[in-house]
Every structure is written in C-alpha cells, then in structure tokens.
C-alpha cells in the first residue's frame, strides 16, 4: 500500500495567492516524499492516515478511471419524477451533517441544546433544519390560527391602548427581510477554563445565521401608542411552558432593527426555532430572541427575569455577576480545517471560517498558521452585512508540518477579538457566558486537527 501511495503523482496545486512564496512552494514540493515516509512510519492501526482517507485520483494501469470509462446507472437510465418528495431533503450521502447534542451537557432533552454542524456548512446561511436549538421546556408546533401577540404596559399610562394581534394581522403589516446571526450567550462556554470538546460543532455551534422576515417591533409599539419617554424597557414573553421572559432596553427597538419575525430563509420559522412567531434582536444573544412570542410588555424598569438573575449572568473574578450582558462581541472561528477533521494530504487548502460582531459589520479577519506570531489578512466574501455572519477565506499550502491555525476578527467599531490570555486577564475563567476568544486548531503532522488552547 505504501508503494501504491508513493507511486501516486503529486496533487499539489499552486496557491493562487502568495501566502507561500515561490521558494516556499518549491520546498513543499521537494519535501513531500520525505513527509509521506514519516507519516506512514508513525501510522498505527487505530489512527487512519491521511492517504488512507484520501479519494485517490491516479491514472490507473488500464489507462482510465472506471468511474469515467464505465457509464453509471444514472447516466444510462431514467431518473426519478418531479415532486417525488413534496418537500425535498438533502442527499442520502449527506447523512453525517446533523445538529447534535454534547453528551453529558444536560440531563434532559427538553431543557437542552443542539449544536449546528459549522464544520460542514458553506457561505453564511444556516439551512433551517440545521439551525441550532435551545429549549428551556421543550418545543411545540403551535397552530398559527390560534396564536396571538399581546402588547400591554406595566402600568396603563405607558401606552394609549393595549393591543392584540392575530398572525393574519401581523402578516398583513409591512415586512422586512434581513440576514442576521444568532448566537447563544453560552456559545464556547464549555471552553472558558480549558479545552473540553473536540470539534467546532461543539465549541462554536450555538451559532446560526438566517434571513429573517417580519415586522419591525417599533411599528407595533407605535400602533399601541407607547410613551417612549417613560417606557424605556420592554419584556418579551413566550407562549411555551417556560413562558420565557427577557428584558430589552428600548434603545434596541427604537433603532428599528428588532423584528417580530415569522419567516426564516424564505419559509415560516421551524417549530424548533419558534414557529409561528419569535423576536429577532440583531447582535444580541439568542436567549433574547424569545420564541413562540405571545406578549410584549412595555415598562419603566428592567424585569430581572430568571434568565437575567439566575442564568445568562457572567461571574467576574471578584465574585460579582454581570447582569443584562447581552451584546455578542466580535468573534470568529476557522471551520475548515477544524477540530476532529483530518487533512487528506499536504498541499493546497482553503482555510475558511466565519466572523461576526453584535456591534456592526466585520471589517477585517486575520489568519495565522503559526500560533499567532505572523498573520495574513483573509478575504471577506461578499456580502458583508450588519450583525451577520461573514465568511472569510485564505489560501494555504500545508507543508506537512504541525501548524497552529487561528483567526482574529476586527469589527467596524475597531474592536479586536481577544486571545484567551487577554480575555481571562479581565474576566477570569468562570464567566460561562460571552467567551469570544480566538480559537486555536492544531494540525498535526499526520493531518489530524485537534482543539487546543495556547499559553
């Protein structure tokens, strides 16, 4: 087998950009044979080697690839008819791409989390069926004809008239569709103290991004005649068992960006994500995007709800908890290559990942492969939108040596994503919430990528 691999022609592709100089690329080509020997010398039965995983693409002895020479059934037969499946599904070959629980994180599946498979996603939109889930008391599929949204006041003088809206009425109002990320405040929370989970699905997968459609909440508050001078806060409340409540400062609503949303990625919200109605609060942690939204109460003080007093509070080194922490600060993560993956071979790769900021747009993403000593500016893929995931890429020719891959985002306020050392110096390591530190992936010489933290 070793001989067969060694006989394969080189598959290295020159990096389109000069991340590696011409001399470095020659060195990579020259060193390839030596690398393969080392890789195989260290290979064991338990660990698959890169070459064993690779889809080999040599010219076989017969002078051609049987996949080309022998026409397959799909080229010589009749395929399936239209509307075989009224709502199409992914290919059966994509069965590995699933949202998943982190074993042992929660004891029940109704008050729990599933993580989006970021390592397998392209672009910036999360397919609705892969959107991460967070439920506090289980999810429901609610009949939209019976769902109501009420707007009232903590005291009657805070608005002209309390209101009730049906879904039909809400969907008649002027709508907007906007792309935004949603990230749980506890995303990466397991990693505050040390490495705890193996892949970016579990380190960063409480993150999704969709095009949301709905009515600006400001329109509804205007319809109720809210006194914005006195009503500086509101409470959003869900209709599920937990009747989740969160306080929103009115500043966020007055900007017009908070939506009462029913649509996501061109269709209605999925039940797991709040069908038929949820709040969309751009830039703010997911717990404030109340699902199954049934009521908005305007008030003159914050509400101190369960998820503002007992959870979603950030413990600081002096023993105080920060309350009402909700803005998701600038953050990024390399999703390919990332933890738990194995590179197929050395040579060209596109390093790819996601960057976002709850304060605005991503201005710049830098990528390092040497653990942060030297950085290159990554390409930002258009569109780059406000409080939305931004895809970045960088060309990389892997030379077969261990590499420490990181990304570092800067947003348009000038805020730079910190290292773990910088973050912990201020916040300690027991915060649970709002971990936006730079993520490091170690690419080992055998091609396997591991989640690591540096010091």
């Amino acid at each position, binding site marked *: 087998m070793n001989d067969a691999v060694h006989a394969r022609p080189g598959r290295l592709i020159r990096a389109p950009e000069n991340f590696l100089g011409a001399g470095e690329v020659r060195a990579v080509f020259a060193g390839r044979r030596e690398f393969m020997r080392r890789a195989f010398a260290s290979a064991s039965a338990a660990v698959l080697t890169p070459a064993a995983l690779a889809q080999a693409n040599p010219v076989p002895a017969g002078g051609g690839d049987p996949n080309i020479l022998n026409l397959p059934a799909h080229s010589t037969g009749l395929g399936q008819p239209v509307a075989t499946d009224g709502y199409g599904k992914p290919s059966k070959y994509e069965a590995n791409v699933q949202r998943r629980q982190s074993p042992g994180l929660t004891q029940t599946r109704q008050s729990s989390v599933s993580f989006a498979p970021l390592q397998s996603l392209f672009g910036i939109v999360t397919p609705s069926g892969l959107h991460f889930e967070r439920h506090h008391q289980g999810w429901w599929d609610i009949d939209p004809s019976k769902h109501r949204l009420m707007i009232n006041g903590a005291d009657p003088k805070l608005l002209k008239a309390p209101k009730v809206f049906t879904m039909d009425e809400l969907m008649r109002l002027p709508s907007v569709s906007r792309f935004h990320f949603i990230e749980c405040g506890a995303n990466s929370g397991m990693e505050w103290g040390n490495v705890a989970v193996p892949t970016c699905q579990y380190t960063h997968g409480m993150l999704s991004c969709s095009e949301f459609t709905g009515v600006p909440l400001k329109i509804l508050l205007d319809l109720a005649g809210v006194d914005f001078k006195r009503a500086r806060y509101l409470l959003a409340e869900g209709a599920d068992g937990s*009747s989740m409540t969160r306080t929103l400062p009115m500043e966020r609503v007055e900007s017009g960006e908070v939506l009462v949303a029913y649509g996501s990625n061109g269709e209605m919200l999925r039940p797991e994500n709040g069908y038929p109605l949820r709040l969309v609060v751009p830039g703010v942690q997911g717990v404030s995007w109340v699902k199954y939204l049934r009521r908005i109460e305007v008030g003159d003080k914050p509400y101190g709800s369960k998820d503002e007093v007992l959870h979603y509070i950030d413990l600081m080194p002096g*023993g105080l908890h920060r309350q009402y922490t909700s803005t998701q600060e600038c953050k990024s993560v390399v999703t390919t290559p990332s933890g738990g993956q194995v590179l197929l071979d050395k040579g060209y790769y596109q390093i790819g990942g996601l960057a976002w900021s709850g304060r605005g747009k991503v201005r710049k993403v830098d990528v390092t492969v040497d653990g942060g000593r*030297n950085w290159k500016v990554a390409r930002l893929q258009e569109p780059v939108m406000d409080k939305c995931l931004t895809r970045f890429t960088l060309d990389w020719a892997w030379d077969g040596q261990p590499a420490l891959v990181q990304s570092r985002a800067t947003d348009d306020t000038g805020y730079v994503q910190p290292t773990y050392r910088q973050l912990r110096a201020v916040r300690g390591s027991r915060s649970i919430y709002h971990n936006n530190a730079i993520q490091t992936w170690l690419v080992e010489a055998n091609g396997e990528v591991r989640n690591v933290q540096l010091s």
Partner: protein
Amino acid sequence: MSSCRSGLMLLAALPLLAAAQHVAYPGIGRDATPREIAAWDIDVRPDFKGLPKGAGTVAQGQVLWEAQCASCHGVFGESNEVFQPIVGGTSAADIKTGRVAHLRDNSYPGRTTLMKLSTLSTLWDYIHRAMPWTNPKTLRPDEVYAVTAYILHLGGVVPADYALSDANIADTQKLLPNRNGMTTDHALWPGPKRATRPDVAATACMRDCATEPKVASLLPDHARNAHGNLAEQNRAVGAQRGAQTATAAPPPAAKAADEGAAALLANKHGCVACHGLENKILGPSFRDIAKAYGARTDAVAHLSGKIRAGSSGVWGAIPMPPQTLGEADAKAIAQWLAAGARK
C-alpha cells in the same frame, strides 16, 4: 383650483394623521380586554409590581415540595441529577453582607440558585410561570408563596415557622444572601450605570508578534471518542474527513415494527423528563424497567398501576409522583414497557 387647494389642505393635515398613529394601518389589531390582560400578564418585577396578593408558610411549602418538586430537585433542593442545585453554598454571614463569599472562591464547585439569586421576585415569578416542569402554571399564588418560603427556609434564610406574603416579601428580599451581588457596569448592554467602552482591549499585531505558541490544553487521548465517532460527524466528501475516533464500528440500530406510538405517549406525558430510553436520568431507564418487569405475567397491569398511582423506594430514594394520564395511555405505555421498550 379648488381641488388643488383641498389637496394642499390634505397635505397640511398629514402630520396630524401621523400623530394619531393607530390610523396608519387601519384594520390591523384591536384593543386587548382587561380579562385577556389578566390571563397573560403574570410577570413580577424586582420592585414586586405585578405580584398577586397571598401568603404561604414553610410547612405548606414542604408538603408541596415533596409532592411536586422533590422528584427533580431532591428532597432538600440539593440534587444536581436533573437540574443545577437550588440550595447550598450560602451562609449566615452572606445574609448579613448580601454577597455570597463562595462566589469569590475559584475552587468552590458549582453555583446554586440561592448563591446567585439577587431579587426574590425572580424566584416567585419563575415558579409561578414555569413550574412544575411538566405541569407549568398549575400552582396557585398561595402555593407559590409557600414553595418560595420553603426554598428560603432550606437555605437558612427564613425560620421554619415563616409565612411569606405580599406584605412581607420586600422585607424578606433584604435577607437574600446575594442581594448585592449584581452589577450592570459593563459595555454589553445599552442600559444605565454602564461602562461605555469594552472591557477587553486587544490589538491586531501582524508580524513577529509576541506570543509563545505552546499548547497548554488539549483533549486527552482517552476522550477522543467522548462525543461519538467524529468520522461520522463530517461530510464524507471534500477537503477533509472526520477523524476515526471509534475503536470498533457501532452495531446498526435495531428497528422494531411497532416503533413510535408508545414512545410518543411517554414523551407526550412528560415521562421522558425523568426516564431515558437506555439511560437512568432521575428514574430508571425504560429498558431497565422492561428488564425488571417484562417477564411477569401481570406486567402490564402492574406497570400501568404504578404509572397512575406513583411509586417509591424501588429504584432509589426519589419517589415518582402519581401521573395524571388516562388509563388507556397508561396501559399502552405499560404494554410497550412489558414488551421490551423498543424504540
């Protein structure tokens, strides 16, 4: 000319129309009735605005607790088997200072509800709106006062003969061990009393940056497969594959013909909050129940009876309360259990 003039008059009237905002979208929405508002407006603020009148004693709370709360939270509110513990970690000194000393101690494991609770309204509101977990909003206000009083008593905040009421709740608030433990002085929200600049200031060094890329933390080899086989969690085509972390291929999942129906019932009635299919949560797994009782000739009658009447002392210290489901559903679940609890 006259039509032109009336047009101008209409234009002049527009700002007035905009001021009367509810005509902007005629036909959309209606006024909420007082009964509707009363049915949904249940929130209680830290200043106790919204709190219904009522009272409940520690003794009444204990009865409710053991019947409806202890199965998840433990008899003394100390259990971490299903949720984080409610009671523990606070002291009499904390009640004096309003700051929980253990929160300053990096080595103290875990944080209980009473260690964090800074506003008593929060506890009352949450029990009222969301508890018991499988039957939320079934406790009357007096019962919520009683359960709240019992929790405070378990934490040593109020004595055994305490009665909590709308009249004394503001004074009781002044006893909370962590009442002074919160700050809003940070830049992660736009509210008052806050820092205006982010607390962490990093710079974007590009070349020869001062850092020692020494690996300080990584998953040990024995944890490689702790999240399942990573080879099965990555796309099977593309630039990378998932690492093969399983030492042996898992057996294919067996599917039974009658899958679904009874398991769905177990889900519908909230059984799965305490029983996993294959894993113990608070109660035994469905499979373990099936193993223990499946061979009995009266298994179906015995199990459906246990489901409806409750059970204690067989699988552990925590009792299963009587369940409110109908006889037919209980029997269907019992039949499924007796037949092996197949998925």
